[in-house]
């Protein structure tokens, strides 16, 4: 048990080479480059995995009308599916008050691209082309006043978009085994208090 706890600490301290050892069991095979390409749909906040392609809000509007409006509403106000456009809270509104709405609350534009790409449209997930995903992302970011209406979104421009919450979210503290998550939270208190 002690070594289990020690290992990640060493790794985090930069001793990653400790893990660079030979395989013990030799079970499993090496995937082909094509297999990795086909499955690796993760998109980093840096956008490093973004594919070639591009799109604008105008192009996105036509795709939206065909593939999204039925559930999300013609104007993005949401119907059976979630709202996609921020609430009107006035010009000085805190970005967190605009609603739990992906293309305005997400700290990174890449998350918007990634979710449309992996999760939309319902029952036809994975069918959108890269151009279509760039176009729809541009539309949603434009609707929410994050980018200019004419902006072209591609693998270079999308990661450069600064979302309102870019620096307005609480990063998760490092995790280590056997540690309380929040020092000072009333975990040490005994005695009365009652449940009321």
């Amino acid at each position, binding site marked *: 048990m002690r070594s289990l706890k020690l290992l990640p600490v060493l790794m985090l301290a930069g001793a990653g080479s400790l893990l660079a050892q030979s*395989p013990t069991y030799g079970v499993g095979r090496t995937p082909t480059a094509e297999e990795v390409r086909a499955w690796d749909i993760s998109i980093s906040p840096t956008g490093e995995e973004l594919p070639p392609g591009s799109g604008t809000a105008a192009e996105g509007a036509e795709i939206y009308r065909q593939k999204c409006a039925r559930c999300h509403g013609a104007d993005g106000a949401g119907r059976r599916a979630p709202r996609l456009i921020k609430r009107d809270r006035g010009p000085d509104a805190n970005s967190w008050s605009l609603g739990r709405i992906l293309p305005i609350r997400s700290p990174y534009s890449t998350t918007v691209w990634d979710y449309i790409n992996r*999760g939309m449209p319902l029952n036809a997930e994975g069918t959108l082309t890269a151009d279509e995903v760039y176009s729809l992302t541009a539309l949603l970011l434009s609707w929410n006043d994050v980018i200019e209406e004419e902006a072209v979104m591609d693998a270079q421009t999308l990661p450069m978009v600064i979302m309102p919450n870019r620096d307005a979210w609480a990063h998760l503290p490092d995790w280590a085994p056997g540690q309380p998550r929040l020092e000072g939270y009333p*975990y040490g208190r005994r005695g009365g208090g*009652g449940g009321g």
Partner: protein
Amino acid sequence: MASKQPDRRSFLKRGAALAGGLSLGAVEPLIPQTAPSDQSAEGQSQEIPDYSSDELVAYGERSRHVTSKRIPHGGRDSPDDFGLVFHIAAPLQDSVGVITPSALHYFGTTRGSIVPDIDPAQHRLMIHGMVDRELIFTMEELKRLPSVTRLHFIECAGNRSSPRATTVQETHGMTSNAEWTGVLLRTLLEEAGVQEGGTWIVAEGIEEVKGASSLPTAKAMDDIIVAYAMNGEPLRPQQGFPLRIVVPGFEGILSVKWLRRIKVVDRFYMTYNDYGHLRQDPADAALSYQIGPKSVITYPSGAQQLPGAGFYQISGLAWSGGGAVSRVEVSTDGGESWEDAEFQGTPQRMAHTRFNFNWNWDGSEVELQSRCTDEIGQVQPSRADVREYWGRPRDGSGGVRGQDNSIQPWRIESDGSVHNAIS
């Protein structure tokens, strides 16, 4: 099935005896023929259910008299207009011991999900990204590797009590506990060789929305299980068949189901699932991932009815994401005084632990509470303590912020009815 049916009742009993572990090799009746007088014994139904041989022999069904069931959680219909299933709560009020039966295990997804129908022979798990050797495994290959079997709870971060809730299924039903079998993720990552700087992993499912979550590599190297079985059989489809991760003690969304891919990366990837759990307040965020110390009395609990004064064994479940439960105390006077409860069995790390407390009820109105302490010394707080932490009046109303692991009070009125006592 016998070609003639001389006595269906004796056949039923024989089936039950077989299920009880008697030799399958015996051909003659395994128990004496039932005397006719027994058939009208009190409590025994005169109506014979029409069990098929599958239910009796191939895969046993529970009695038709047992009706414990899951319910949609949080007021959102499941399935919804689109046929998606969201959150379904386990009937903790009926629980005994620590294992949640697989068919009653809680279920949750972020966007909702149509449970995929996966052929395990075609299923693959890929490990890639910042590793020395990218690897792809079949299910058969995973089962060749050294395995572990461990009890772990899973709990949805949204498992919150509220004054509006009536039963313990509504206040606490988004947690369950099962025996998980699989390969430690650490085994697979060591086989692949994590490169320096690979401080996070992204785990992803193969279902239509390809749900993915970011997790610290430190947790992956500690105790995450790549599980292919629960409670002695393959995972249920709703629980990720044929493969999932179980992230002990962490919010349920991180235990990615229908697992197809683990990518080792250099940062928090802010997947859609990650985004959905973002917090603005650092204290809120610090309470995420690891579930706090928590317990709840399941008997007597909300909407149950005590027949009258006398002896009762108070019973409940306790758990913590911080490790094993080390102590559970019970109060029968609304938190004024506390006494230690007894554990039923040995507490396991990041697992539900059953506690019992023998009690004579005098028939007057009382308020029951339970309080969990875990192996790293964390104590379950009262709602008043939590309110005070967040700068609210101790005796105020309203919910608690962050994860809700606060003490659950149940009020027993003099008529024996049990009620949620949260204000």
